């Protein structure tokens, strides 16, 4: 019974946060803020759901599984990377380097750095 309650709570929590995460995706005003909603809300959403499953199988389902843990690990490991990459993509597409604080006066953020970061027009084309 107690497990049932815990499981139920976890499921409801998971569902709730999953929904909120995606709702945030719709509701929040600009891309950078929208990035926050799913990277976190969804982690807990799916995290709670997986935890519910982790508990459900040994207690209610009569078999033990640990895969949920692995999935969770994987998700938590990768979520920051996807977050950072989407942010970088967004910075690249929608932001100017000057709109951001600089890391140091003469340095750029990695997205804005690099010798290749030139306009197509500037590029020398030797043969044409």
């Amino acid at each position, binding site marked *: 019974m107690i497990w049932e309650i815990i499981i139920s709570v976890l499921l409801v929590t998971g569902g709730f946060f999953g929904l909120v995460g995606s709702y945030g995706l719709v509701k929040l005003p600009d891309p950078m803020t929208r990035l926050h909603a799913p990277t976190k809300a969804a982690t807990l959403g799916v995290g709670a759901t997986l935890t519910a499953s982790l508990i459900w199988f040994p207690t209610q389902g009569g078999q033990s599984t640990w895969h949920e843990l692995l999935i969770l690990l994987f998700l938590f490991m990768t979520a920051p*990377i996807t977050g950072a990459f989407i942010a970088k993509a967004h910075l690249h597409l929608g932001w100017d380097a000057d709109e951001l604080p600089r890391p140091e006066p003469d340095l750029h953020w990695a997205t804005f750095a690099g010798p290749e*970061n030139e306009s*197509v027009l500037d590029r020398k084309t030797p043969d044409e």
Partner: protein
Amino acid sequence: MSPALIALLPFIGALLPGLLIRSGRDVAAISCGTATFIALLGLCLHIPAIMAGEVITARFEWLPSLGMNANFRIDGLGLLFGILILGIGLLIITYARYYLSRNDPVGLFYTYLMLFQGAMIGIVLSDNILLLLVFWELTSLSSFLLIGYWRHLPEGRQGARIALTVTALGGLAMIAGMLILGNIAGSYDISDILQAREAIQASPLYVPALVLILLGAFTKSAQFPFHFWLPHAMAAPTPVSAYLHSATMVKAGLFLLARLWPVLSGTPEWFYLVATTGLLTMVSAAWIAIFRDDLKSLLAFSTVSHLGLITMLLGFGTQGAAVAAMFHIVNHATFKAALFMTAGIIDHEAGTRSISRLGGLRRLMPITFTIGTLAALSMAGVPPLNGFLTKEMMLQETTEAVWFGNGTVLYVFGTLGALFSVCYSLRFVTQVFLGPERDDYPAHPHDPGFGLLVGPALLVVLVVLIGMFPNTSAAWLVAASSSAVTGVAQDPHFALWHGVNLALKLSLTAILGGLLLLALNPGMLAMRDAVWRPDGKRAFDAITRGATGVARGFTERFTNGSMSRALGALSMTIVATGLWAFSTGRYQGASRPMLEVGVVPLTGWILLMVATACMVAFHRLRILALVLVSIIGLIVSGTFIYLSAPDLALTQISVEVVTVVLLLLALNFLPKYTILDSADRKRGLDAFVATVTGLGFGALSYCIMRSDFAFPPISGYMLENSYKLGGGSNVVNVILVDFRGYDTFGEITVLGIAALTIFALTETLLAGASGRRLRNWVHDSLRAGDRHPMLLVVVTRLILPISLVVGLFIFLRGHNSPGGGFVAGLVVSIALVSQYMASGFSWAQERQSINYHAFIGAGVIAAGITGIGAWFAGLPFLTSTYGYVKLPGIEEFELASAMGFDLGVFLCVVGAVMLGLNSLTRIARQTGATVNLEPMDVDPSKEAEHR
């Protein structure tokens, strides 16, 4: 000598000049002449037997089930034609030796000539109409080659094509006619057909067969309105004209009429078709001949005219006419060949064949003059030459025949033809030889050497001999041949003088009229030029040009390189035929209950619908389209899971990510947006096609899902025996690696080949124009910094070994749970790809000492070896066995030999995916990307060490 051998000898002769192509004119002529002579000798040896009424046959089975056999026969008709073909052939071979220039490819000429000779002999000796057809068409082909022999002359090429096309037209019609004839007679052997007169003439197919066969005969014999090809064939070297277009080939049609005379003639259809055509041809061609300026052209039309005469005689269907026809064949061959050779000599010596540039050659070329005049007079029907004899016979026959109830029309026209004939014959004599000598011949005319003269001289001797002594010189041959034609023993007697009868009067009229006409000729020429007249060549050109134009338009229209049209046609064909097939059958109606729909499937459905619709709407934004593809793939995978197909879901989702990576790699070099370049109307039409196809497919699948199997599916057995006999509890996997392992074997081969193709293509691209273009590539978008972001490098570095473990797990448990070699391979590939994406290609590549070619090869071989392994147990390819391997203390595995197969799958998948991606990456590197030596762009820890 066997008739077959006689027919074969010219072909053997044809090989010789080909083999001795460099040894000159003499060798070629002698070898061909020898072959011809032997054949002629062989033929003549049969004369006594044939005179005695025998028919010499030789039979070889060739294609008995079709009734096409190499059956030969020599009867009187064959003998007549055989002697003509081989005898004149011998003369032509001699003549050509001296006629052709040293620079001409003489070997080729003789080869063609002998091919033709063989074909002709084949026609006349065939005892099987299908065999006859073979030789018949061969004459068309070899004449094509001979007419076009001087390939630099446009007239030659055009003439050759016209001749080929017209005679091929007839030949094709004749194929049909002969097949019908044979089907009626129940045999294709001429001997049998000749016995089937009643059956043939009673058959409803008699008229079609007759028309088709006549089409063949008339085209070959240049009968009206197909006569126009013959003058254009005169572009051929003169020996060819003399041989093919006067003596032999054009007579093949006559031969055919004569050959089938016993079974086809005697009906009104025959009479009106054949006799009328003959008459028309005789008169019209003679009329045209009067005005020709080119000697050979004049002779050609005269030939057409005389062929018409013979045709008309055969068309009469009476025995007398048949005899006259046979006799005229002999006579015409002698004087016409002589005339052609004369024309050739004049051309050769005077440098022109144009009558308007000739005249007065009598003194310069006395021998030629004599020969030419005698032959021309014979052609004019002047006694006592042989032409006179048959002209009289012809006129006699026309007076006896009745045409649509009219007894005079035939002989009036017959006389008219004879009159024209006199006119052009005398024109040949007077305007070439007589008159004042000129000083503007293109060359210096004089009598040629013996080689060129011997042929025509011999022929003219015959002209005179037959004319004077017809009963001793030629009657036997005419008797033999006309007996063969009529099927009744003939014993004709010929005489120059029959008393003053209608024929003689007509003959006299013709001669006098001809003289008068000759006197009027210049005036008439002007008059004729002023009046429009049909021109066969121009009509032919117009028709062929039109046909070519239509064909081009048609071809351009129906295969215009439009993919969209092709696929649209495919879609509509599928829908139309599918619908037709379905609606003409019976559908039982929905028998299976529907599954309930929960909230999740409904959500999935909405997602899929919306995503698909968006995909179509936004497909021109390519990256968005790819995102949508990923979403659709995700939902499809979810669908598979929901509907009890975990293996499918695993495969689908992992394949899809690799596909997306691949598409992204390609998209880097492709435009990022699709230009809108189809018109609204086309898009509307496409949408219609798409909707109809979608509806059709949806409906089909609905019908299927709602109905039951008509028979228990074989998968029941698989479910039952998968564990028992296959040793695995994941039935899908057991099917893949065991029940249907052979499919999987093919499947991984496909994958391997795909990778090899990609690799090969990449190499080719980089080596060619694309490589240069890539080296000067300008990226079409602004590029961010941070090529190898540190965060990604660190995490993928951790993910790689974990993924390998997961891959191993999925591989090992595949036989019993969802998974298996394929998914495992993809998982490992994806992990490796993530390394590439994070740390850069060169760095990651350096760390794998893997040759993906070898992987693919090893994969296919491993799968193959697992299959072949069974051979050693005496079992078929891919027979698996299994057992549980329990290494003490270690994880217990079920080790099916099928797992070796699965290993092959794994290797192949990894090799193929990686080789494919490698290749794409190579294209990218061609654009001049720098190579990284470190896994990440900046490594702060290293930097600290340096400090």
